[in-house]
């Protein structure tokens, strides 16, 4: 028997998208396969690595631990939606400036996590940064430059607001 599909509507990066998915379609797979937004990376698929982090109604969540059907009617922001047109967001520019990435696989998850972190806490302490990014794994950088990038992003955001 073919799997039943559900018609859902997601507002992804400000655009309303309609898509038909089976109940078991992970939000990460829906974004990547059904909507072609491959910026969201999939690492561990059990919630450990944080690569697939996206913003659901503005809050960072694991898209591999969320069903697309559950997100029906909600707003999603992926890494593709962080930049303002051609101009990278302060968080993206800070990561580039501070060498907060090497291979880049974990970066989309970090960018979404940090964007939400700074929205909630515009000037975090070192400890708050560590706690904030503790759910995102990076196997290249050793984290030091990522922490610098978060502080730099806070500065850039403050300067530009």
């Amino acid at each position, binding site marked *: 028997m073919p799997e039943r599909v559900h018609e859902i509507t997601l507002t992804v990066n400000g655009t309303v998208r309609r898509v038909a998915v089976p*109940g078991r379609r992970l939000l990460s797979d829906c974004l990547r396969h059904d909507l072609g937004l491959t910026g969201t990376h999939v690492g561990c698929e*059990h919630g450990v690595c944080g690569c697939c982090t996206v913003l659901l109604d503005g809050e960072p969540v694991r898209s591999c631990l*969320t069903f697309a*059907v559950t997100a029906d009617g909600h707003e999603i922001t992926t890494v593709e939606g962080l930049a303002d047109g051609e101009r990278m967001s302060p968080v993206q520019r800070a990561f580039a400036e501070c060498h907060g990435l090497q291979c880049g696989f974990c970066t989309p998850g970090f960018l979404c996590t940090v964007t939400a972190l700074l929205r909630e806490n515009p000037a975090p302490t070192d400890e708050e940064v560590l706690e904030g990014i503790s*759910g995102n794994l990076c196997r290249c950088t050793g984290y030091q430059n990522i922490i610098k990038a978060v502080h730099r992003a806070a500065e850039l955001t403050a300067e530009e607001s």
Partner: protein
Amino acid sequence: MKPPPFDYHRPSSLGEALDVLAGTGEDGKVLAGGQSLIPLLNMRLAAPAHLVDINRLTDLAAVEEEPGGLRVGALARHSRVERSARAAEVQPLLGQALRLVAHPVIRNRGTVVGSLVHADPAAELPAVLALLGGSVRLARRGGTRDVPAAGFFTGPLESAAGPGELAVSAFFPALAPRSGTAFHEVARRHGDYALAGVAALVGLDDDLRVSVARVACVSVGPVPLVADVVGACGHRPPASADWAGAARAVQDRIEPETDIHATADYRRHLTGVLAERALRDAAREALHA
């Protein structure tokens, strides 16, 4: 690493949810935050035929003060309870424990009641409910029952919630006057499941002598283990109570197992150290309460 197929149900009222669960019986599983269930599905360790998604039942997101404690609805996310100033006042142990639950991003989605029903013996919230003597409210079509924590956790990943039942809320008793709490744990990496962890509750009488001293231990048995250590630490002021003796009494009560993460001996050692630390901190809080 993809979930197996299931029939997806998204009820829009509690009554509808209970009807669906009554119909699916043993084949039905409730989906709330999904932060424990979806990894199990992704790893194909669980394959329920029906998933009942309660994320539209927003009435269940309430966190409300009730006489004697705090009632947390089935859809209240960890992060919401963690940030609730009222919850912190009524029962500070909740916030102390929630900070140790996974990572902030997981806590945005995961629910307090979901953690209780998942009943992982390595998890913090079952220990909190057990230590405080709270309860879980289970609804089924045509009835509701409150199950005390002591009878709720029946084994590793097993709770008293039966087929057709939905855990609609949990009740956490308030902190009594002149009482304090603490939660300490050791994990390999920040946010991982703890190798060992201890929640402590200490209460003082009118003469500021220890009259309540209780701990709940995680990761050292099939269910959270609650130990009353008031006899071991003595009916004395906190400064002269035998906290080391109380910690030894806890070590004697537990039966940890060896696995790839830690030996049984190491878990016993950690539990002793953490018990003493948590009891001392809880006593300090009680003196200042």
